């Protein structure tokens, strides 16, 4: 028996030791530092110091990430959240769906992580996490944040919860009021004392919702449902008290479309008959793109366009003028710098690898492009604190 043990020791131990040596290369999982890319010359006196870009990350990947472009240095930093908040367990989260700034706070709505992450605008450090199930977008008015959520109370149909909007006090960062809206609410905007909410009904295919909910902010009740079209998505207010709202269509027979709502009458004023997936309004122009997909043809058609919001007419002109659009696989986000009027378009490419952010000058010529996180989608500009 003793001999056997010795033999064992002589054989097994060296092999085990070799194995350990062989596998000593597990260093421990470390925080991934930002990717730093200089993209432009420094503009120290810009009206906007920079912008945050929220990357959605593919669902289930937990790869939502935050990028920041600093105009004062001309440097783009991708994936800054984890380094700024090293103690946040499993980092920023899964599917970042919206990002906005109100006062000195940065609000990121992380859909699958069921939370609104509230950060300091200058340091990007977490101030608080507000848990909201299946939250989608955020907008602000009078010291309050309004967050749309798919997860409202379970009403008539137990398996298709109606949506709601939650009011959050921006000082205490606590939920103060709730209002039930339509099914699967998306973007919102405040005009006067009314909150407009685009209801998609995306969980109820083919019985989409087709309304915009109008919420009175005093009573926080739904005072009207405006019938618009199926599967509503984007909703933006212009400077004239009108609201632009988009429909995704049904991907089969009903195409994507753009509508105009007059907030004085709370009725649809105009139908533009152009496909719109996303839009950004700046000055007198709405910059739009449409990436409409049809299961009938099995193809998606990508188009870029502009709408004059004063005359409320489609310009039928691409805002990209140098042919760069041919290299954009999947436009996913759009923004315009209010100061410089630079137009930003993000390319989500194949959704599972790094995307690209394009910066165009106001005449539509490419200034620069940079690699972002996965599914770059939402941009918010940081005003200079002068």
């Amino acid at each position, binding site marked *: 028996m003793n001999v056997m043990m010795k033999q064992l020791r002589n*054989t*097994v131990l060296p092999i085990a030791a070799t194995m350990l040596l062989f596998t000593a290369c597990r260093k421990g999982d470390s925080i991934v530092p930002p990717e730093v890319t200089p993209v432009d010359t420094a503009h120290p006196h810009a009206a906007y110091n920079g912008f945050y870009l929220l990357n959605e990350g593919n669902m289930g990947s937990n790869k939502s990430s935050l990028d920041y472009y600093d105009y004062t240095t001309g440097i783009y930093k991708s994936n800054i959240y984890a380094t700024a908040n*090293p103690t946040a367990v499993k980092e*920023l989260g*899964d599917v970042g769906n919206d990002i906005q700034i109100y006062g000195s706070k940065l609000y990121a709505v992380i859909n699958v*992580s069921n939370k609104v992450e509230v950060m300091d605008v200058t340091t990007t450090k977490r101030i608080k996490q507000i848990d909201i199930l299946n939250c989608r977008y955020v907008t602000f008015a009078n010291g309050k944040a309004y967050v749309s959520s798919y997860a409202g109370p379970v009403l008539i149909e137990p*398996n298709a919860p109606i949506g709601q909007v939650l009011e959050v006090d921006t000082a205490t960062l606590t939920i103060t009021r709730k209002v039930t809206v339509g099914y699967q609410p998306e973007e919102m905007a405040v005009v006067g004392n009314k909150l407009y909410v685009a209801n998609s009904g995306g*969980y109820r295919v083919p019985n989409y919702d087709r309304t915009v909910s109008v919420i009175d902010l005093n009573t926080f009740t739904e005072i009207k449902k405006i019938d618009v079209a199926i599967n509503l998505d984007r909703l933006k207010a212009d400077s004239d008290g009108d609201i632009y709202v988009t429909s*995704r269509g049904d991907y089969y027979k009903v195409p994507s479309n753009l509508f105009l709502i007059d907030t004085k009458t709370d009725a649809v004023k105009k139908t533009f008959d152009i496909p719109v997936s996303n839009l950004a309004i700046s000055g007198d122009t709405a910059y739009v793109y449409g990436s409409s997909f049809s299961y009938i043809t099995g193809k998606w058609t990508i188009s870029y366009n502009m709408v004059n919001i004063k005359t409320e007419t489609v310009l039928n002109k691409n805002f990209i003028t140098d042919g760069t659009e041919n290299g954009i696989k999947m436009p996913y986000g759009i923004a315009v710098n209010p100061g410089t009027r630079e137009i930003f378009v993000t390319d989500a490419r194949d959704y599972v690898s790094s995307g690209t952010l394009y910066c165009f000058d106001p005449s539509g010529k490419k200034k620069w492009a940079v690699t972002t996180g996965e599914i770059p989608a939402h941009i918010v500009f940081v005003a200079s604190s002068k």
Partner: protein
Amino acid sequence: MKCFKEHAGWRKKTSGMLFFMLCCGMLRVHAQQADSIKTRDLREVAVTAPRADREVNPGQKMQAKELERLGSHSVADAIRFFAGLQIKDYGGIGGLKTVDIRSMGTNHVGVFYDGIQLGNAQNGQIDLGKFSLDNMEEIALYNGQKSNIFQPAKDFGSAGSIYMTCLKPKFAPGEKTHLRGTIKTGSFGLFNPSLLWQQKVTDKISASFSTEWVNATGRYKFRYRKLDDAGHVTYDTSAYRKNGDINAVRVEGGFNGILNGGEWNTKIYYYQSERGLPGTIVNNVFSHVDRQWDQNIFIQGHFRKDITKHYSILLNAKYAYDYTRYLAPDTARLYIDNHYRQYEMYFSMAHQYILTKWWTVSASGDFQWNRMDADLRNFTYPTRYTTLTAAATNLTFSRFSAQASLLGTFVSEDVKLNAGAPYQQQFTPAVFISWQPLPSPDFRVRAYYKRIFRMPTFNDLYYTDLGNNLLKPEFAKQYDAGITWNKTWSNGWLTQAAIETDAYYNEVTDKIVAVPGDNQFRWMMMNLGKVKIKGLDVKASAVWKLFQQVNFNTKLTYTFQRAQDFTDPADSFYGDQIIYIPRHSGSLILGADYKQWEANYSFIYTGERYNSKENKQKNYVEPWYTSDLSVGRQFQLQHTRFHITAQVNNVANQYYDVIYNYPMPGRNYRFIFTVNI
């Protein structure tokens, strides 16, 4: 146009049926021949294919004894010790475990249960975690195909194949009944009793029955931990994996018979399970409520007989029904309650003719019918008719042997709704050679080439809002060259040693990949991908006799794989290693037997990988490696044999993910108690 298409589809189908009927006709003719030669002694020609080291493509195998010593829970756990494959393991007892052979993708793997392929027309993947080792006689892995020309056409139809063979009753003189009861318990709240009963019916017929119940909470601790640049811990969080419970029952039984120069068997298999789907662990969401119910039933039969001294016939038939219900009842998310039903019928006939002592030819024809129903909105309700024909030849000389086969595949589909896939017809070849360069048979050189494809699955083609009915098959081309060396010694401390090495180059083209639609919840399947794979498999094994009564077994595998995405030079990941494939991986098994005692140490190593297409730091996944230890002892009380095993798995308590955000268990324990009567 539509009318023409339908007509063409019907024509192909009828031709498939005609072919099959032709085979049946032949069967009748041959059956008559069989009657007329009944008196002849057929024992001489009972051996129909070269075996063991003479196999042109020997494959990798694990036998019952070794499987028992390893004590793995499922086939998926045992198969990790083969070279050249990676398991996609979603973690836990009930977690999905699929296999990817030589980086060609899960869909290129054919899985055979007692000689007949397990189908899944819906998504083309077989969950190997479902299959117990309790009644396994052998698990074998073949790259290319099994080196046997006398087999159904389907056996020629995958890029790589796994064969699970159940225990066949073998009775010593005087024995009539074997009874074995096993209870496994341990971590994860596991309670897993099983029963195996083998009965001799007549001298030539035996029956077997095997049943098993797996019940587990699936609860285990996992841990995520991050460090900063300086190596300080920034967060370290532990939690218990929830909703990983499983309750599954397997019942199977059948008859095995021996004929004069032949054999037959029949089998009925039933599996039923309910399990929780523990889901991804992401920020702020550590548990899920999704559930899945499965039911799998199949009946199959197999018949092989040497009709004349030169001519043999092989028949196989199967009917299978598979049911899955997927429920996502989270009220805050999209509610899903889908039911999927799949039906399969399969008939195969193979003929072999021995022309000369060194030359054999074979022909086989299979017909398969698949249908799928699902309560998805706007579902297509597809039916697929597959006809496979194969012609193969085998040459065996004293120092050289070769096999060549040509497979014809003819697929047509019918749909109730929407548009169906167009008719497909493909001819794919394979060539295997084996050469013994020296007078000693210890050393052999071999090589193969095979071109094969996988059909788009029903999900690829028809999944509502995702499928693309115009998909083409996805092709895989393989080139392989290798050596085998093995030697046995009758005295000395080393009694047996073997080394096997293969270098290979594979190409996957028209790879079916999901391409996003206009938002991230809408995707579309496309024939877009292209992957080139350079690889090296090394397998070494030895049997040692270190001390009079101590036998040592050692087995080592090493796999190198450079699998690169060459889809589009404009992609940021062009030329990058594909997702979840390590460049280096390997395994080690050390087994020792001493009198009634046995001990086993096993080690798995998976090198660094990437959890997305880009080989960037943000997608980097650390290597992981686990050590498992087990000790067992046999007891005998008169005619009853007892066997007790205790295991510690993942001894070093390493926390890791095989699939990103699906944490694997840390250290866990298992106890196995077996009674043999």
